[in-house]
């Protein structure tokens, strides 16, 4: 871990919306290259980066489409920079092929999706949380990524910075899932001084050219990284490959590669999973929520507690990998999970799967376009304890 470069860290107390806080999180993490394409409600992130980067030695390039943006940042990563791109639903769909490329080439970079209501053009200026499964399964094939869900502008800053750290630690693309409300709500964001920030540097190899292999994890799970131009003469391909990076399109090679890519995340799940648990002891019902919905749920939970219901809160900070262990444990102790989401049931499927019938799982779906009314969630909590 090292401290963030002092240039760029906007130390101080600010009023920022989630989009703007996300930009500052990237800059504080040392990100100095961003690619982008305008799409509501994410555009402000790149607008701010385009305005701030020239003051801190960064480069932002707007590309002709999200297909270009989602691969340009990977080129920049291999050039040696920390990189980010930002989009919303329709652009996220376009970026899927390249998210898969980043997964198989183990390219550390950050993708931000400020979710809006879909499908297709949908409601461009209104919120939803309808891309959660897409963040996990959107690209073709099997792969594992890390996805974080801020629920406030402060968390947009914190978790974007953390996303860069996770990307470097595990040599994996990380997805930051905001939504239009968190993106556009203005709250206090406190940015500490640079020396207080924990920033993970890239796992630069200590091996020499000739010794280094770009996909050799050296007995561990995560390979070291290099950049082009330093004499390593690497080969990186989206085809199934061996440790040298050369295409090896056989079943054994594919299995070896795939299992390491999966284990890289799953065997480190305890270190990666982040959640915010409140009042779980003795809880009869636990509300599982994330993003903006967790803010609404707070009101419903408070009201329920006032009515004497022993209700706890389990907020997903990392949606993926999913906190299976914790939900499995809870499912043995509670009567029900209540899962409000701004979608017609996505993360609730995971909760239900993990609970495996040991308790009830009560979805609180919403088509999106606005947030839940707390009373709707409260009603489901009451139903859960009946």
């Amino acid at each position, binding site marked *: 871990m090292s401290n963030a470069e002092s240039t760029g860290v906007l130390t101080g107390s600010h009023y920022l919306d989630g989009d703007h806080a996300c930009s500052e999180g990237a800059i504080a993490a040392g990100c100095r290259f961003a690619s982008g394409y305008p799409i509501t409600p994410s555009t402000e992130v790149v607008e701010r980066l385009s305005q701030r980067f020239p003051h801190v030695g960064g*480069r932002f390039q707007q590309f002709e489409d999200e297909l270009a943006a989602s*691969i340009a940042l*990977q080129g920049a990563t291999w050039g040696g920079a920390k990189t980010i791109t930002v989009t919303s639903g329709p652009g996220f769909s376009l970026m899927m092929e390249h998210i898969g490329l980043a997964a198989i080439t183990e390219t550390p970079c950050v993708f931000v999706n400020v979710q809006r209501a879909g499908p297709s053009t949908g409601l461009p200026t209104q919120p939803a949380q309808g891309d959660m499964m897409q963040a996990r399964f959107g690209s073709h094939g099997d792969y594992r990524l890390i996805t974080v869900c801020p629920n406030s502008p402060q968390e947009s800053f914190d978790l974007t910075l953390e996303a860069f750290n996770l990307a470097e630690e595990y040599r994996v693309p990380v997805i930051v899932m905001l939504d239009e409300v968190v993106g556009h709500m203005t709250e206090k964001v406190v940015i500490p001084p640079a020396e207080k920030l924990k920033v993970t540097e890239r796992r630069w190899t*200590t091996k020499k050219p000739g010794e280094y292999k770009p996909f050799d994890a050296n007995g561990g799970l995560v390979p070291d990284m290099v950049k082009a131009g330093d004499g390593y003469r690497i080969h*990186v*391909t989206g*085809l199934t490959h061996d440790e040298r990076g050369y*295409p090896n399109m056989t079943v054994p090679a594919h299995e070896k590669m795939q299992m390491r890519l999966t284990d890289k995340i799953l065997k480190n799940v305890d270190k990666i999973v982040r959640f915010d648990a409140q009042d779980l002891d003795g809880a009869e019902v636990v509300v599982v929520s994330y993003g903006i919905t967790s803010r609404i749920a707070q009101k419903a939970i408070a009201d329920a507690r006032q009515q004497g219901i022993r209700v706890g809160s389990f907020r997903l900070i990392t949606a993926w990998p999913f906190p299976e262990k914790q939900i499995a444990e809870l499912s043995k102790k509670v009567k029900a999970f209540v899962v409000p989401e701004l979608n017609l049931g996505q993360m609730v499927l995971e909760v239900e799967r993990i609970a495996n019938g040991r308790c009830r799982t009560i979805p609180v779906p919403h088509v999106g376009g606005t947030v839940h009314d707390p009373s709707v969630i409260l009603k489901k909590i009451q139903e859960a304890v009946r």
Partner: protein
Amino acid sequence: MTIVRENPVEKYLRMERMPSIWCPGCGIGTTVNCFARALDGSGFDLDKVAIVSGIGCTGRVAGYLKLDSFHTTHGRAIPFATGLKLANPELKVVVYSGDGDLSAIGGNHLFHAARRNADLLVVCVNNFTYGMTGGQVTPTTPYPAIASTTPYGAYEETFNLPGVVAAAGATFVARWTAYHVKQLAKTMGEALGKKGFRFIEIIAPCPTLYLRRNRLGEGLEEMKYYQEKSVIKNGADPKDVAIDYREEIIVGKFVDVERPTLEEAMEKRMGEALGAKYVPYKQPGKMSPRA
């Protein structure tokens, strides 16, 4: 005393991966040979030359060259390369891909990179087909050639690649065929030393798909056709170099001008607008022990 020397191009190739997957008589290998010769004569620090390719037979070039090489997704080598170059300005970045990859699925990126004058050398091997997937029609397949998805003959108007790329703003545009090995190596060497968006189209044989389906013989027959029907017209107007089926092929260097590259334009505008407040992008430092 006879000294058996090593082929001078071998140091640019990942010889452990030979023989290549390319068919007998395929022209791609010949273009790579010319490229390796161009590198050999250039004196550039090859640690700083990076190659990016897309998907297809020509896309496999990245896997055979012993440079920092990136085999990316179909049609998207150019934006990858643009990002690579913007993040690491001291690299010389070459995109090596085929006609379908660059002008069909990658067309949007091709034209925007030319417009921006992104500092890239794009080598486009045009064999008039999507070879890897079995010989489908591409934007350059001429009327009325047979392709697997135009079994009764291609019927669309085609791209005159030098014409469209020049119109989009490329500052260096040339075309040779795989027959013109000496000229091609020379042009590649020249282009490597320049800045801005450089585009070299190379007409090359695809014996297994395009030639066989159209009963045009083997790779050698096609090379003889290039020899016979090529007309060298350096300085020709790129608008006038369209290729008709089995007609003459105009080759040569068509465009060679200078204008600010993407980076230069970016830096200039930032500098002008921000003055002393502008903090230019810093080349990422060396971070690993070198041999």
